[in-house]
């Protein structure tokens, strides 16, 4: 009994000692610290992992004076000085959120305490939110590596919070416009996995834009859940739809999305399927053997070497040299671009004071980062019209580049103004 109490107190004391860490103080000669409160080990790794690696490479590049597209971004002096603001090095500090909210908040606080004035947080709004709130409370710049919920940012968490990604509703817009204009489809059907907010916003955006366009009809929609072992009931319902839709928009993510697609194709439904970034590349293609009539829109191209731009090629060579493989998804560009954006903002502001960085970032207007033209304004800290890269799979087990496509109509983030 007493032993138990002693054990408990002993652990508590160990806890106290374990927690005593020195706090580094920043000065002009010391490195500029960039925080990473990301999932390094749990299921969010699928989304956080690649941007995390992109950031690593970017930081190495800055410190080695080898930043991609330095000239276009007006950052040649960074490369010459092998560092930012006249030679200060960048340094990454990391914390594993383990896809856990409390741990996420703790990681956020840890980044602040570690001296970061610019820090990344998880893709998802609900997973990344706790860390972002810590950043916002401390007044440092927080950027989501790939969060697509428009409530991230000024409208939601706070004035210093940004995301690298495109709003999910805007992704729905660009997918709808592409399907309508480039493929000439008119009858659509949307299948929503309602387990996360991203997918809901995506399908809302798609449905909304689709029904606006002349002659386009939404013949039906249905829902399923990420962890449903079978979607046979939905398939049976789909088969009853007449005429057969031209395109099936699936708003889901891997693994549930791959499972749904396998069942759909196995049911003999060969309707063209359209998906967005959350289907995260082609690593899951074994799930749907001989996948054809599959169209996928995402941030950029890591799949079709013959279509790489010079910048992409330069980056992917570095990636391969460092990690010995090709990145599984274009999310990796988001991480690199985040550091590019920070460096540009630092140079522009001439200081690492967070509010100055925010002001600099809010002047970005189609700045050509690796991920593509990036725009932030005082009330929009998310992309709503960045070009989207389209691929198809036609039974050959890989994604082939089709084109980059930019939506005509930007999704209006003004709907969220009420959050202020």
């Amino acid at each position: 009994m007493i032993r138990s109490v002693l054990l408990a107190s002993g652990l508590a004391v160990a806890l106290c000692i374990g927690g005593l860490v020195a706090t580094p103080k920043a000065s002009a000669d010391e490195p500029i610290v960039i925080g990473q409160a990301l999932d390094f080990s749990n299921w969010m790794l699928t989304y956080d992992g690649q941007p995390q690696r992109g950031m690593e490479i970017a930081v190495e590049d800055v410190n080695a004076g080898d930043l991609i597209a330095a000239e276009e971004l007006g950052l040649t002096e960074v490369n010459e000085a092998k560092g930012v603001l006249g030679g200060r090095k960048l340094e990454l500090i990391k914390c594993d959120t383990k896809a856990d909210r409390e741990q996420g908040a703790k990681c956020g606080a840890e980044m602040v305490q570690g001296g970061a004035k610019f820090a990344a947080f998880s893709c998802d709004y609900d997973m990344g939110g706790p860390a972002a709130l810590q950043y916002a409370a401390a007044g440092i710049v927080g950027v989501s590596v790939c969060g697509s919920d428009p409530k991230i940012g000024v409208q939601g968490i706070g004035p210093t919070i940004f995301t690298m990604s495109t709003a999910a509703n805007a992704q729905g817009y660009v997918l709808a416009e592409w399907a309508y204009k480039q493929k000439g489809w008119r009858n659509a059907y949307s299948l929503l996995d309602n387990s996360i907010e991203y997918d809901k916003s995506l399908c809302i955006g798609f449905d909304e834009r689709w029904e606006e366009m002349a002659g386009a009809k939404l013949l039906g929609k249905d829902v399923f859940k990420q962890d449903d072992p079978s979607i046979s009931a939905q398939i049976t319902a789909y088969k009853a739809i007449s005429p057969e839709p031209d395109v099936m928009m699936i708003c889901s993510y891997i693994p549930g999305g791959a499972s749904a697609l396998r069942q759909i194709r196995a049911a003999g439904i060969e309707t063209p399927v359209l998906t967005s970034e959350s289907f995260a590349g082609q690593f899951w293609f074994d799930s749907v053997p001989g996948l054809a009539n599959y169209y996928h829109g995402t941030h950029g191209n890591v799949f079709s070497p013959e279509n790489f731009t010079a910048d992409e090629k330069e980056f992917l060579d570095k990636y391969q040299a460092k990690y010995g493989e090709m990145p599984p998804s274009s999310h990796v560009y988001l991480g690199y671009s985040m550091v590019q954006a920070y460096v540009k903002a630092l140079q522009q502001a001439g200081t690492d004071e967070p509010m100055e960085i925010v002001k600099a970032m809010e002047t970005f207007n189609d700045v050509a980062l690796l991920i593509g033209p990036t725009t932030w304004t005082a009330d929009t800290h998310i992309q709503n019209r960045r070009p989207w890269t389209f691929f198809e799979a036609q039974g050959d087990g890989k994604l082939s580049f089709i084109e980059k496509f930019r939506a005509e109509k930007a999704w209006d983030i003004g709907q969220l103004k009420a959050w202020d």
Partner: protein
Amino acid sequence: MTFFFQIVIDAVSLGSLYALTALGIGLLFGILRLINFAHGNFITIGAYALIVPSTAVVATPFIGAWAWFLMIPAIIAIVIVVALGTERIAFRPLRGANMSSLLIASFAVSYVLDHVIILIFTGRPKAVNVGAELARHISFLDLRVPAIQLVTIAAAIILLGGLALFLKRTSYGIQMRAAAEDFDTARLLGVRANTVIALAFAISGLLAAVVSLIFITQTGILSFRMSLNLVIVAFISTVIGGIGSLVGAAAGGFLVGVASVVLQTVLPDDYKLTRDAFVFGFVVLVLIFRPDGLIVTRAVRERV
């Protein structure tokens, strides 16, 4: 009419999958009062055994590449070994502990196995294509039915029938039934606890392996969280069916599966999202009005 039969088959096959899972959980729950959340890990491990252990993003098939007559016994054997291993290492030392200790132990086992999977394979989902021919639809009359649904139904019938015969006809089966109804009395009557319990774990491993193969044929994708939902549903089914009653467990699983499909079909769009709330609401009602489940055994009656 075709539509109707299609729905019936959808419902029966999902019901069969749940029934097989519920049976695996119900068996141990009946005998040991163990809510074995690690049952989900048995299913997950069976699926992961199909691919080469590696942290690479794209999975390489391992056992999944073998011919089916080698693959199926191999997966079954692996899962049975895992099930027996957890029994020997984790649950046997806890024999006689109360229900909450057992529950927490099974949670701990499940937690450890989850993270072993993460450590070996990472938390990223992995694709594997097994039984693609079965996933395809076959036609008869006007119906187009995925072969896997028929396989699921057939597997459920064969395994339930086989288990029923085993329990009725063999001496181990009779001992196991006695243990499920009243473990203490059964022990007094000379039932060998270790053997019967190990056997029960082996059977639950067998059932998990079959569910694993069906599941993966259906979905083609692996993730360490893949069977949590399945296990929750199966566990609830066990209770609806009647604690300690194996027929009840299977029937409960079947009922929940059918109810899910029917609700998914008949509910208006706005309410489809809350489908599960209806299912769970139904569960609460059953528990209130028939607290011992639909099939009552002696196991739940309190003796004065």
